[in-house]
Every structure is written in C-alpha cells, then in structure tokens.
C-alpha cells in the first residue's frame, strides 16, 4: 500500500517535535477527519533555519509531515511557499490515491506557518511605529 520511502519516514520521522520559541506556527486538518498537523518554523535572514512538526494521523500524514521538513529546511521563504502537495508525494515515491487528499496536508501546514510568520512580522513593525 505504501512505498518503502513512506514507511521509512513513518519509522524514523525527521524533525519531530515542537519549537518553543517558533517564529511561525501553522495548524491544518482536524481530528474529526483523522488527520491534523502543526508545523513550527524558525526564520533567520528570510530562510527556514529550523522546522519541526507534530502530527495526529495515519502513516501518510506522519510521513508527509516528516518529508516537508526535509524539503523546506534551509530554503528561503519564497522557495518554501512554492512547495506543493504534489512535490511532497513525489518525494515520497507517491502516495495511495485515497491518501492524496486528506492526509497530504503538510505543504498546506508549512504555508500556514509562513503566513503566520509574515503576520507576526507585520504586527511587530506596527508596534515599533
């Protein structure tokens, strides 16, 4: 059902955990649907210097979360925003069709985390004014 790569990421998820002083946090999905994830990012000089995840969900949800952290780490925010669901699935050597929609949320989670970062930056600037 799952590719060896998906199973490998499920067995040994990369960058699992929280960043207590994260610059941006993105939560997508819903426990009601069976998949929910939170992405934490740390940004320096417009680059993702750290990224971590927490996920409730199936094997695909956990593997895609792990994969997005690998794909995004070190990238500029603009580059990271461009990573989409298809990129994540491809990097995992594909996902079962039924999992493409509900469980492949990681790219969305990252985008929400970056948007959160931008929002906080804007708020900070306005505070300083």
């Amino acid at each position, binding site marked *: 059902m799952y590719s060896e790569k998906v199973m490998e990421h*499920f067995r040994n998820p990369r960058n699992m955990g929280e960043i207590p002083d994260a610059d941006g946090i993105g*939560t997508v999905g819903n*426990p009601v649907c*069976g998949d*929910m994830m939170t992405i934490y990012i740390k940004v320096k000089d417009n680059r993702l210097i750290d990224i971590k995840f927490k996920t409730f969900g199936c094997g695909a949800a956990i593997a895609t979360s792990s994969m997005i952290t690998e794909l995004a780490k070190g990238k500029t925010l603009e580059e990271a925003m461009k990573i989409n669901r298809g990129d994540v699935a491809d990097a995992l050597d594909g996902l079962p069709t039924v999992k493409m929609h509900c469980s492949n949320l990681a790219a969305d989670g990252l985008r929400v985390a970056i948007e959160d970062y931008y929002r906080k930056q804007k708020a900070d600037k306005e505070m300083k004014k």
Partner: protein
Amino acid sequence: MSKAKRIYMDHTAGRPVDPRVIEAMLPYMKSLYGNPSSVHSFGQEARQAMEEARTKVAELINAESKESIIFTSGATESNNMAIKGVAHRNRDRGTHIITSSIEHMSVLNPCKFLMKRGFKVTFLPVDQYGFVDLKRLEEELNNETILVSITYANGEIGTVQPIKEISQIVHSKNAYLHVDATAANGQVSIDVKNEGIDLLTISSNDMYGPKGAGGLYIKKGTRIEPIIHGGGQERGLRSGTENLPSIVGLGKAAEIAKKEMPIERKRLKKLRDKLIKGLLDPIPYSFLNGHLTKRLPNNVAVRYSFIEGESILLSLDMMGVAASSGSACTAKTLEPSHVLRAIGLKHEEAHGSLLFTLGKQNTEEEVDYVISIMPDIVKRLRAMSPLTPKELKE
C-alpha cells in the same frame, strides 16, 4: 519472540482453511468432479457429497431438516437473498423492513437498494455497547413490516444480540426474522429452532472453510423468491452449478466447528480477556469498544485517545503483528466505521480504534507478545501527536 515470526490476529478479515477441510475438498477437484444434477454415477457421487455437507450445516445450527439449507457463494449473497428475496416475495403483505444501524454493508446496502424500489426501511439505533434498542423495535413494528434483519454478533465490536428476545418481539407482529450470523457461526452455538430464527446467513471462511461458499437457512414455509435465476438448482432458489469442492469444505468446517467449538470457545475467551486487560490496564486513555462479557470469544476491540488507528496498525505490522482498524471493507473510504459512530463514538474516537480477532492458531505466548509491545507503540505515536495532553508528556 523473533520479529521474523508473524502473528495473525485479523481473523474477521480472513481465516486459514483448516487442513482437514482441505483434505476433504481435494477429491472433489481431482477425481469426483461430477455435476450433482447428472444422472450417472459421477453425478450421484457429487450429489451425495453435497447432501452430506447440507446435513452437517443443518446440524450445526439445529435446523429442522437439511432441506432448509441453501448453498450460496458466501455471506454477502446470503444476506442479499434473504433481504431482497423476502422483500420481493412478500410485497403484497407489506413494504416495511427493519434493520439496525450496525449491520454489515451486505445487509445495509440491499436495504438501501430496496428503499429506491419503494420499500420503507427503519434503521434501529443501538446503545453504547451496540445492543439493539428492543423498545424501539417494538414501537417500529407494524402491520406493514415483513422483515426484520439483525446481526447475531457484530464482527467489529463483538457484541452478541439477544436473538431469542428479538425473535419473540418480531413474531408477535408476524414479520420474518433474518439473522446474519457471519461473524458468530462456528464461535457460538446457534439454535435456529430454539432462538426462533426464520432465515440465517452462514459463512464458510469464518469457520475455517474455504472462501466463496456460504449458506442461507430458510425455515420451512418462509415466503422467499430467488435473486439468481437459471437452471433451478437448490430447489429453484439459487441457480447455477453448485460449487461442490467449497460446499464439501463448508460441510466439513461445520462438522469440525460443532465438535470443537465448546473447548475452543473457552480457550479463546481466556486469551481474549487477557488481551483486553493487557492492552488497556497499562495504558492511560484506553477504552474497550463493545461489551466486556456479551462479546464474541475472539473479539478484542480497543481504542486509544490522541492517536490514529492506521498508524497503530502500521507500527504493529512493523513488529510482525497483523490486526485491523475495524472493518476491512470500510478501509477503502477512510470514513470512520458506521458501527463505531452508531455506538456513539466521536469521529476522533473512532479513528483511534483497533481490532484484534483471534483464531485457532493464536497462542498465549502471542497474546503476551502483543501486550508487551503496545505501550511503546502508543507512547511513540502520542509523542508525535499535537492532541496529546501535557500530563502524558515526559
């Protein structure tokens, strides 16, 4: 126990065929290949084997005669035949059918099909354990009701229904009672006469017979019509050349089940109760699905909060243990099982559910192994989950 040894605890999804059953079947694929409908000696040998199998199935459920057993291609066909066959034949008497909200898809979907053909169907609610609401059954029964279809025991949560009580209520209104015994046959003793059952679905693989065979008990005098038309086999109720090797296998499986059930049931119950206790006691926020005692001897259905069932299954599989997240049939849709929703579980609770179904070859050593690996699996997944409360974090 080494990882190389695999442990199978998904017997509701599929069972091995008993070697004695395979032995009994082999001649009917090699040398005894006649058609039971033929006049010559080849045909008559086949006919005799088929009728012996029919007798054994009838004896398993204490049917009044072997003639009340019709062979089918399996439980799905038997359920379809019971529901659609009775509905169409009795349309002149009424168009109302009652079933429960925790039936198998092969009961629910024929009922939904009939709704599109003008029948009215009531789906009875169940309580937190999965017991059918008998008071509602009494209230919903009316002069238009021709059929009530209730499962003997639910394969997903193990709950065994009070069939005798249900039968008394149903018969007080002159409706027929169909009972889907797919998950129950071979595990608990069923007595169609004593329990007052008009139609009973029998599955072969669920008692270690071959897949692709099943039966439908039809009490003498029950008005029913076929859903498969053709050469008129099985007293005209199920046309098509009989699947003799599998029918012989089903007969042998029924014979073995009748003989060995009392001892095996006791053994399984002991393993079941040990597994339930071992999976729940050491792990906080863990729960049993279904009833503690009124459940199938082989059924262990549990759930863990804050984590999702499939990721538990994959983790178990990595350790060589095969279990199920519920019904193998609903795994395709990703929707939480309708059974778990019907007993009142929230979506997220249903998603964390896990089903172990034990069988003949499972040992106490295997049960101990599963118990020993579960706490770490749950702990690892909870460490990953954003839903896990702080108190559970180290």
